């Protein structure tokens, strides 16, 4: 920070001396700054006369604390959380990547992705292992290696879809476009697994051609690439006289038998399947097929169309019948004025009653009323129209001729019927409009319930009457008897405790493991077993603790521990053990549990409270037991046997 203006005199002429580290105003002479921080390189003379620069190389990622134990000790303590996370991640990436046989370049790229993810806080709330797997899969995709998401999930024993979700999120957040996976990439890998021997290359080439054919026939969109590969390989193998059963292929390709069969069937539908082996190798058909789901869809559409046509025809026929009925009506009108009177009386009595079905204009108005009345109406109208029709048939054969001249009759029909029904229908439509508008009213502000359109009687049907309530109550009580008992006991317990004044609010425990009682012959053994279960402190080196009592009697446990937690890194802050991923990270305290040969049984915590207190006290006092955070117990014992021995000698 270079001062520009002097505080005393306001002069801008300030002399900064780098050597002394001063800033002085030349006009008034006041010292504005001393001990300015200088960024110059200093040299020191070393033995032999040469001079070397003073300073240390500091990583751009870490801040603050420099490694105090000297250079080369890169697994140093006290680094900030971010650096530790990255280091941890790097280790896990390498571990997983080696299992997948990824080269160094891929692993470095994956680590870069991981760094980006951490800086965007994408690791928060997600299991570290998932994020690592997603980074690795991202690299696989961008590099085009034949690794499937299924492989990764196999290694980690995690659901594929969970991994997939994390992967998609990562790709989206990092704005990385993972190129779509090509099934052709998987073929060499699967072919190798199926062991075709010398003909491996030929079979692969045939399978590739088959796949390309499938692509052009639109079998591959939306399908798992592994399924297509499986089908192609099966056919290719058969073509070259290899007998690979469906089961063998399934084991390699990891799809279901039915999926494979389906793919084969679809391929059968394509014209390519009709070619012989030689023809296929030489000729490539020009045609392309539709995707199989599309053809299935087409079939459905065709069926629907046919149905529609049929219904249309039916409707046409009905319309014809209706028009015929209308003409019959008119004939009746003309011949029988009495019937008209009958209609008129019906009309006057109740607008809801008595309109026969063919007068669709009215019935549509009546549909505004409830359904029950509609049904009755249609029944009545049908009955009426039937009667009329029968009567008419008997007495007026002439009216049949009337049907042949529809055109001349219709205007008279409307003129006759015009005045009567329209008045009625008008009245109806108005009321219908009112009903519709009522429904549209909104009442959110009051909170009061708008009862329009809600039929109370219907809702009453939803509620049981008293005897039914009794029965249901009995049934429910019987079913849930256990739960009710528990609740009662709980309440009693709480009441008692309240009286005694001991009542505590028990928060629901997340997980409470049940432990078997410890069986141990000596105090030392008992401590061991209990510690292994309780995992009191991550900072205790349990190896050394054991050695204290047994004096080197447990070399096996140590070695097994080393194998298990070989490349694992345990951060100081992590206390919970991750149950899923044994090979990736095992806290040392879990060692006893993880290997099957261990003779230790699980212990019951409460009876051994005193011992644990003792041990805790002991651990506080005994510096040798304290392990540097950030070390896997295994690596420490491996790399620094001297330390373990040396430390224990102190005690």
């Amino acid at each position, binding site marked *: 920070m270079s001062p520009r203006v002097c505080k005393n005199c306001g002069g801008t002429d300030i002399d900064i001396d780098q050597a002394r580290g001063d800033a002085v105003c030349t006009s008034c002479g006041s010292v504005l700054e001393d001990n300015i921080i200088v960024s110059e390189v200093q040299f020191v003379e070393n033995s032999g006369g040469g001079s070397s620069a003073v300073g240390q190389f500091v990583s751009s990622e870490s801040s603050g604390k420099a490694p105090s134990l000297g250079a080369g000790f890169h697994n140093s303590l006290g680094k900030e959380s971010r650096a530790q996370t990255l280091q941890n991640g790097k280790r896990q990436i390498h571990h997983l990547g080696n299992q997948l046989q990824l080269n160094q370049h891929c692993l470095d790229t994956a680590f870069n992705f991981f760094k980006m993810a951490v800086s965007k806080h994408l690791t928060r709330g997600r299991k570290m292992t998932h994020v690592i797997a997603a980074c690795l899969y991202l690299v696989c995709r961008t590099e085009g290696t034949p690794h499937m998401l299924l492989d990764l999930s196999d290694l980690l024993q995690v659901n594929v879809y969970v991994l997939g979700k994390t*992967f998609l999120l990562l790709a989206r957040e990092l704005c990385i476009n993972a190129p779509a996976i090509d099934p052709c990439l998987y073929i060499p890998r699967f072919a190798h697994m199926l062991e075709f021997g010398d003909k491996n290359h030929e079979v692969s080439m045939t399978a590739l051609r088959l796949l390309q054919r499938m692509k052009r026939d639109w079998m591959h969109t939306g399908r798992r690439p592994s399924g297509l590969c499986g089908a192609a390989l099966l056919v290719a193998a058969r073509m070259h006289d290899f007998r690979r059963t469906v089961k063998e292929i399934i084991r390699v390709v990891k799809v279901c038998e039915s999926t494979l069969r389906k793919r084969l069937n679809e391929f059968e539908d394509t014209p390519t399947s009709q070619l012989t082996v030689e023809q296929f190798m030489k000729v490539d058909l020009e045609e392309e097929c539709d995707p199989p789901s599309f053809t299935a869809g087409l079939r459905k559409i065709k069926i629907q169309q046919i149905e529609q046509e049929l219904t249309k025809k039916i409707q046409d026929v009905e319309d014809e019948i209706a028009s015929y009925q209308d003409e019959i009506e008119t004939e009746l009108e003309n011949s029988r004025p009495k019937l008209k009177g009958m209609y008129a009386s019906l009309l006057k009595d109740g607008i809801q009653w008595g309109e026969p079905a063919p007068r669709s204009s009215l019935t549509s108005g009546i549909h505004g009323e409830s359904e029950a009345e509609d049904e009755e109406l249609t029944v009545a109208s049908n009955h009426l129209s039937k009667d009329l029709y029968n009567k008419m048939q008997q007495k007026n054969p002439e009216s049949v001729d009337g049907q042949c001249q529809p055109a001349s009759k219709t205007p008279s029909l409307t003129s006759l019927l015009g005045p009567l029904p329209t008045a009625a229908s008008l009245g109806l439509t108005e009321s219908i409009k009112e009903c519709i508008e009522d429904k549209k009213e909104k009442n959110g502000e009051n909170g009061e319930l708008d009862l329009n359109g809600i039929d*109370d009687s219907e809702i009453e049907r939803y509620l049981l009457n008293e005897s039914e309530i009794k029965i249901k109550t009995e049934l429910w009580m019987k079913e849930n008897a256990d739960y009710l008992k528990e609740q009662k006991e709980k309440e009693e317990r709480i009441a008692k405790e309240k009286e005694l004044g001991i009542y505590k609010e028990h928060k629901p425990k997340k997980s409470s493991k049940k432990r078997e009682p410890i069986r141990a012959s000596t105090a030392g053994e008992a401590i061991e077993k209990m510690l292994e279960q309780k995992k009191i402190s991550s900072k205790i080196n349990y190896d050394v603790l054991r050695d204290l009592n047994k004096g080197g009697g447990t070399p096996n446990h140590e070695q097994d521990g080393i194998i298990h937690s070989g490349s694992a890194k345990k951060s100081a802050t992590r206390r919970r053990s991750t149950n899923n991923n044994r090979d990736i990270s095992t806290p040392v305290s879990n060692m006893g549990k993880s290997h099957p040969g261990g003779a230790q049984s699980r212990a019951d915590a409460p009876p051994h409270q005193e011992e644990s207190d003792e041990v805790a006290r002991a651990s506080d006092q005994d510096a040798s037991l304290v392990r540097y955070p950030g070390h896997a117990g295994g690596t420490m014992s491996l790399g620094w046997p001297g330390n373990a021995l040396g430390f224990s000698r102190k005690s």
Partner: protein
Amino acid sequence: MESDNDVALDIIITNVVCVFRTRCHLNLRKIALEGTNVIYKRDVGKVLMKLRKPRITASIWSSGKVICTGATSEEEAKLGARRLARSLQKLGFKVKFTDFKVVNVLAVCTMPFEIRLPEFTKSNRPLASYEPELHPAASYRIKNLKATLQVFSTGSITVTAPSVQFVATAVEQIYPLVFESRKTAR
């Protein structure tokens, strides 16, 4: 509803989800015992009540919040919700019908052509994602409409959005994109 750009597409609404509050504490046990069509899920702490007339299923919590699913239109959803509140009223609770909101609308729409999914995904990179290993459809998100569309290779598209209007807008937006990547007739 139809969206008329150049072509009339039929957008069929299959599900409408809505929520409302009754502003009063509900005794779930009483509802469970006195209703004909209720399922009491004690472990989760809610009652499922199914109505026949608008075919809806409602999840009722004791706090008074109710989620209604299964309706085929917004109006139907509102009607069903009101019916439900009415039946709760009949049971004796002092329910009020407040904060009614349609939360999610699911609609299906079919294009008259098939779609090349890898091509579609490539041209709409950050918004579209396609993982054939996981799901046969490509998913496309429209942020400002908060809509998610699932595009299948057969040409059928599933849209979920907060309201019916958004659904229509989403379909209109995606139509040209999908039209580009359509499979041309051989």
